[in-house]
């Protein structure tokens, strides 16, 4: 199945054209050089030159000890837990933990602090007396949230990649079992009475193509360690922290409500996202979704939630809007009871709603994330991830009363500057979205989108992973953007933000950050990168030159032709027979294969829900590689190999 035509010009004109092309490429490369290889970035304060790989603390979560004396700060980039005196804010100790820590929780007795290390699939057990790691236990794939039961018998860990909650023996760390949770299981919260554990997840559960996303709150019986309920979250994709009132009657969870079924051009009219809370529990009856957004300013990317011990206020950190929103709980409850409840239980479309219960926006640092109350509820600690500070909010005045600096460098590197831009919604119309609205934690969102430039209802596109992008250009599914500065600059500014353009330096830093996003460890690779038998058989199929009938497979129709090189792309476009009626062209950029197992759905428009469906459903004519001669077990082998890429 030949899909390329090779020009064979072999005369003087051809040579001249080749020289011109080389010269052009050189000029083009020079033009892009600042963005792709920015000079070590000038310090904001003193113009000192910084190394490009400078490491920050990047505080993600905060926990206050049971006696209120200590503040534990999980620092993701420096891979440490920093311990502070909760009264004086004096640093006590820095405890190194594992790679890319993400979640943290105290045992019921307070003598242990558990930290999940998301990139090495372990749990660090810290003795809170000695402030030292006393054990490191293996858990599932990309452990994130963690909680310990009241009896001191079990630990529960949410695994983002394996989409489950691991149940561990609290004494030995031995895994007892795993419970099926939502896709991208990430955050765990225990009910105030300890009887239930609630798990949320950052990617939507699989659903039919171009239908509203579906998410859930997975409810676990703590004593039995089984899932007993799933609270449905309709139209939600991206669910983060959850909090309860002290009486257990009110639960609130921070979430994204994407509007991905309508063209993104509607940013001025109805937004690409609503950012909301779902409330549940006895205080509200059936779960109800309430917006955090306001008429002229959105609450882009809510993350952490905390309810004051006296239940007077509810606080939500808004990562993209760089603030904390304070909500009057009584007014909130009055709103949900006084207003006629929409049939679907959602007020997300009502931008006037939040005026009824949001009392103030408290500006904090860049990308605020985790949040925790002091024991008396008078102070609220907020981890400013891209500021390397902890904001201390006086809950009586709702103002920042103090800022605790961490030990990371104060100067801002180009990468950090770009990361701030990636996570900040300030460039977009009404502060609605940022890159991270769709690329959650610099990954993807599991959704398909209708982007305007291709025409309304045309060219539906799946959101791709953006890890380790260098060497995978061009970008966009139609291969229309030759480099990251084009992808992130004019395109984004014109079609996404509809508001403020980046200046050159901002764009260069953003591009640099995007190109520096590393690829997470591949969980399907064996240590030492050996292949299992199935993976080895799959590799042979991936690289085969003849089909099972001995017939040669044309070079251009072998897996290795398009999905060549280390990252699995030859960076060219082809028609692999997957064009839909809504597509303007069948010519599509060859996607990279890095961590392909994580990024369902597949194909340019997300129509294949699983890797299998790429070939069992969408390759009837063998245009997407010769596969129809394969038996089911051979196809399984091929997929096992692809998972290692």
């Amino acid at each position, binding site marked *: 199945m030949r899909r390329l035509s090779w020009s064979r010009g072999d005369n003087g004109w051809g040579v001249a054209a080749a020289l011109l092309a080389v010269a052009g490429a050189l000029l083009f490369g020079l033009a892009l050089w600042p963005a792709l290889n920015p000079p070590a970035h000038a310090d904001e304060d003193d113009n000192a030159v910084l190394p490009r790989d400078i490491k920050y603390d990047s505080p993600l979560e905060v926990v206050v000890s049971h006696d209120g004396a200590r503040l534990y700060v999980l620092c993701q980039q420096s891979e440490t837990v920093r311990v502070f005196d909760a009264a004086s804010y004096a640093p006590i100790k820095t405890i190194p933990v594992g790679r890319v820590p993400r979640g943290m929780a105290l045992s019921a007795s307070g003598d242990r602090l558990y930290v999940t290390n998301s990139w090495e699939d372990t749990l660090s057990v810290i003795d809170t007396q000695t402030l030292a790691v006393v054990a490191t236990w293996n858990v*599932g794939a990309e452990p994130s949230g963690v909680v310990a039961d009241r009896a001191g018998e079990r630990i529960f860990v949410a695994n983002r990649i*394996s989409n489950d909650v691991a149940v561990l023996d609290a004494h030995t760390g031995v895994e*007892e*079992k*795993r*419970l*099926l949770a939502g896709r991208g299981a990430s955050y765990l919260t225990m009910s105030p009475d300890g009887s239930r554990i609630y798990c949320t997840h950052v990617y939507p*559960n*699989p659903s039919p193509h171009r239908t509203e996303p579906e998410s*859930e709150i*997975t*409810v676990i019986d703590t004593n*039995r360690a*089984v*899932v*007993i*309920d*799933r609270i449905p979250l309709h139209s939600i994709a991206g669910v983060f922290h959850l909090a309860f009132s002290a009486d257990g009657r009110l639960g609130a969870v921070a979430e994204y409500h994407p509007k991905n079924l309508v063209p993104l051009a509607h940013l001025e009219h109805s937004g690409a996202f609503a950012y909301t809370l779902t409330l549940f529990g006895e205080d509200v009856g059936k779960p109800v979704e309430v917006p955090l957004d306001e008429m002229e300013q959105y609450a882009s990317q809510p993350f952490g939630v905390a309810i004051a011990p006296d239940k007077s206020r509810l606080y939500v950190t808004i990562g993209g809007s760089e603030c904390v929103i304070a909500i009057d709980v009584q007014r909130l409850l009055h709103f949900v009871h006084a207003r006629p409840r929409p049939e679907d239980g959602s007020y997300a479309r009502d931008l006037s709603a939040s005026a009824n219960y949001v009392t103030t926006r408290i500006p904090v640092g860049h990308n605020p994330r985790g949040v925790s109350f002091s024991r008396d509820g008078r102070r609220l600690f907020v981890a400013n991830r891209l500021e390397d500070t902890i904001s201390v909010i006086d809950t009586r005045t709702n103002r920042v009363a103090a800022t605790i600096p961490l030990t990371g460098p104060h100067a801002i590197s180009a990468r950090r500057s770009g990361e701030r831009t990636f996570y900040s919604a300030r460039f977009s119309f009404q502060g609605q979205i940022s890159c991270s609205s769709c690329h959650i934690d610099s990954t993807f969102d599991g959704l398909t989108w209708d982007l305007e430039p291709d025409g309304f209802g045309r060219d539906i596109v799946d959101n791709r992973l953006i890890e380790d992008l260098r060497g995978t250009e061009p970008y966009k599914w139609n291969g229309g953007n030759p480099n990251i500065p084009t992808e992130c600059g004019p395109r984004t500014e014109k079609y996404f933000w509809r508001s403020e353009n980046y200046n050159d330096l901002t764009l260069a830093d953003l591009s640099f950050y995007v190109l520096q996003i590393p690829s997470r460890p591949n969980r*399907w690779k064996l240590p030492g990168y050996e292949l299992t038998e*199935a993976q080895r058989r799959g590799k042979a199929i991936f690289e085969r030159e003849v089909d099972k009938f001995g017939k040669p497979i044309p070079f251009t129709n072998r897996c290795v032709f398009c999905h060549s090189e280390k990252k699995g792309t030859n960076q060219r476009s082809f028609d692999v027979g997957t064009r839909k009626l809504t597509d303007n062209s069948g010519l599509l950029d060859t996607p990279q294969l890095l961590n392909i*197992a994580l990024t369902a759905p597949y194909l340019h428009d997300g129509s294949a*829900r*699983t890797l*299998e*469906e790429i070939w*069992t*459903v969408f390759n009837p004519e063998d245009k997407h590689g010769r596969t129809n001669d394969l*038996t*089911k*077990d051979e*196809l*399984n082998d091929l*997929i*096992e190999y692809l998972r290692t890429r």
Partner: protein
Amino acid sequence: MKKIVTIALFLAASGLALAAAPRMPLYRFENFTTANGLPDNHVYSVLVDGDRIWAGTENGLALYENHQWKTYTTKDGLAHRAVLSLALDKRTGDVWAGTMGGLSRVSAGLIVSYTQLNSGLSNDVVYGVSVEGENVWVATAAGACRLDLHTGQWSLYNERNTPMVEIWVYGVSATTSKVYFAVWGSGILEYDQKTGRWDKYEDPDGETEMVLFKDQGLIHEITTSVSYVDNILWAATYFGDSRYDGRYWHNFLAKDSGLPSNFTNAIKGVDAKRAWFCTDKGLAYYDGVNWAVYRPSLKDGKPEMTVRDAQGKITPVAVTTAPAHNYILGIDFSGSDIWVATARGLSHGILQQQGNSEMNKEKSR
């Protein structure tokens, strides 16, 4: 008055007969059909999970809980309306349902379905399923397979990598040591979890319908169901049933045991000695020595129970209830009660009187 005397005489006669016969479990059967909430009378499979009873029917997966039926259908995500087999993951409470259109995982209301198109499942017709640790073992119309819940990897077992001749796998029973497959036309396959080796048990008489060597191997190649309990293999075929202790075979035929029929749809061992047999002519129980058969009479449909002792003497026991139909497809246990899947409804056998074997078992505890 005459009627009362007649009944008294009947009961006395039954009592005398029962006194002479071995004491076997006596049940009062309550039957569920579409008339009282079941979505379909064709019940292929039944599964007990504490107080919850799952019934795999021709029109959905039904759950009986708190005296009410709830039905899951394809609208809820079930792979297919016809649910052929059920298995419980005792650690998590998840139920796995083998259907005519794929394999479904039911987890606290969430249904995730695997098909031959969207997953590595070998075939959409799933006759059997069994959960062992993090592995889900599946018997399909095109070989067997295993889903590793930790890695998501599917491993397929068929004629290319096992001694399987036919690939029509009807049943599976998995434990941490051994996994057994009932392969229609290919006997019983044994997979050793530690060594990764396969073994095969076949009928020494080959494909003949004659039993030349009765206890020298599996009774027949056309196997339908398998149950591995207490290191004992119980195997069902359409031509009699077998028990294998790792060294000796003991086979059961209708002509020389208490089996009501050689045509056995399913078998379920209670322990090393006792087992239940789901046949086309009634439900049979074997306590290691004696047999009992429970069914509506094949002649007049009236409730019937018979007991057969070790000498082959058959004694009727007077009963007023019976399973919903004599075509039995599945059974599961709920304490001392039984739940029975039949071709015309689901039956709940509520224990009225223990058998000698069960009483001795309790005493020995």
